[in-house]
């Protein structure tokens, strides 16, 4: 048992060493906020994770700055979440970097929100080629129309799908 406890202490001390790494996350945000002032809002920073909220009208310039100046070169995923109580759909781009070694462990979550009943967002396809299928999936699963995306159409669902987008909260699985 004593061995196990010692090992645990070691892992916690390792965690303590990891914590100063938050410098990278904070420096990413400070560079962003010095450029865009109050257009960007920090949601949280955790080890290797940072989340920033941007209004839809500024998202393209922020994304372009992230790619060209800070080196976040691709999107790992695009995720839409439905919040019926607040009447919004949140769309998050999880960005990461292959070309900058020090940023490879960071996941930068770029978040934006749109109205739930008329969901329109500018597409980030001109900035990140990698979002093409992810945005298409978000369109069919949550009904968020990406302006500027060439193909806002069915992707994974059946060809004869005639119901509301299934990941909206008011779509219920039958029998549940």
């Amino acid at each position, binding site marked *: 048992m004593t061995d196990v406890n010692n090992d645990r202490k070691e892992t916690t001390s390792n965690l303590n060493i990891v914590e100063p790494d938050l410098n990278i996350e904070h420096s990413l945000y400070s560079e962003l906020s010095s450029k865009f002032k109050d257009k960007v809002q920090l949601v949280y920073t955790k080890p290797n994770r940072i989340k920033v909220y941007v209004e839809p009208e500024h998202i393209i310039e922020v994304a372009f700055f992230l790619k060209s100046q800070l080196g976040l070169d691709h999107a790992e995923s695009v995720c839409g979440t439905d919040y019926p109580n607040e009447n919004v759909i949140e769309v998050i781009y999880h960005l990461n970097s292959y070309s900058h070694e020090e940023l490879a462990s960071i996941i930068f*979550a770029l978040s934006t929100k749109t109205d739930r009943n008329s969901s329109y967002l500018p597409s980030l396809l001109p900035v990140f*080629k990698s979002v093409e299928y992810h945005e298409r999936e978000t369109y069919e699963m949550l009904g968020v129309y990406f302006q500027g995306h060439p193909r806002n159409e069915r992707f*994974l669902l059946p060809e004869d799908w005639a119901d509301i987008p299934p990941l909206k909260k008011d779509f219920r699985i039958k029998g549940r």
Partner: protein
Amino acid sequence: MTNKYSESLERKIKETTKLGLDVVKEAAEDRLMTLSVGPQHPGSGHFRFTIKVDGDYIVYCDPDPGYVHRGEEKMCEYRNFIQNIPHLERPVIHDSTNITYSYSLAVEELLGIEVPRRGQFIRAIASELNRQVYTLYWLAIYGIFLGHSTMFMWPAGDRELFIDLLAALTGARVTHAFNIPGGVRNDMPEGFKEKCLEYINYFEKRLKEYEDIFYNNPLFRQRTENVGILPKEDAIDLGVTGSVLRASGVPHDVRKVEPYDVYNEIDFKVQYMKTCDSFARAYVPFLDMRESCNITRQLLDKMPESGEVRLKLQSNPKGLIGEAYKRVESGRGALSYYIVSDGSSKPYRVKISVGSFRNILALPHLLVGSHLGDMPSIYWALNYWPVEADR
């Protein structure tokens, strides 16, 4: 005489070229033929893509996934954190330990718990063995679709070694449901370490034979070398992952860049190549298998002899309000979960981002402009698993 003759000849040439141009222009649209590859075609898996060919050249490609879409993300919202495990491994049953690994990591962050050290090692060992199972299965399929039936038989046979090991460890051959938030379901059986080392030593000898019969085969090399070039810049831009990315010269492996659990104590090299072609995409998983034997040996060596493997949770744990994003390196690249919790016992939103879905973006990029005959070697080298991409 000569003038008249040359004039008439000139006129004739003009007429024929004019005629010829029209014919060519008309035929350019007529010549295109639309082909549907899959979903029943044996060379595509449960996946369909439409291609247009001009003679032997592919000029257009449009992937159409979704034939095995199950709605995993929606299903997650109806079940609690523990009930989600068995159905989440269905998208890729050959790599079921890795697809539940990052889910468990994310849920652990939301529950605020830490896995006991021995549990972390057993997890990592199971995921390494399972990655071998997946890669061998993929290699078998790649072999048979390039017409090399020995390369179908051998990996399919050697895969049984790892399946036996995993069956001894977890109790099931393919769908293990082994990782759970808080650790692993059960401890190692007695004598597992010795058996595992014995099988790995045997398997490393077999890998040399694979290289001789398959990777050094001149026919295989001719069909894959300089075929389907994906330059480094394009690979980064398209956001591909796993062996496809590493074959384009980017040494990116989640186990290295963001070590989870005990991987920061393991000494290993990220395997990558710089030739960017189908051969590199087929050879990098092979190098990964060899390195994985190395990693498994170190894990078995460094594992504590005794201790807890699982942190006991209450029966229906409630998550903290917040979100978690965790990723692991699977057989097909980074596999990440984004989970939002509203404080109840069920996740509010689960997003699964898988390597297959990201890699398929490279398919139109690679196929357009290549020969129809190169299609199998390009498509299968993308390490694409249709069921996982559809979720």
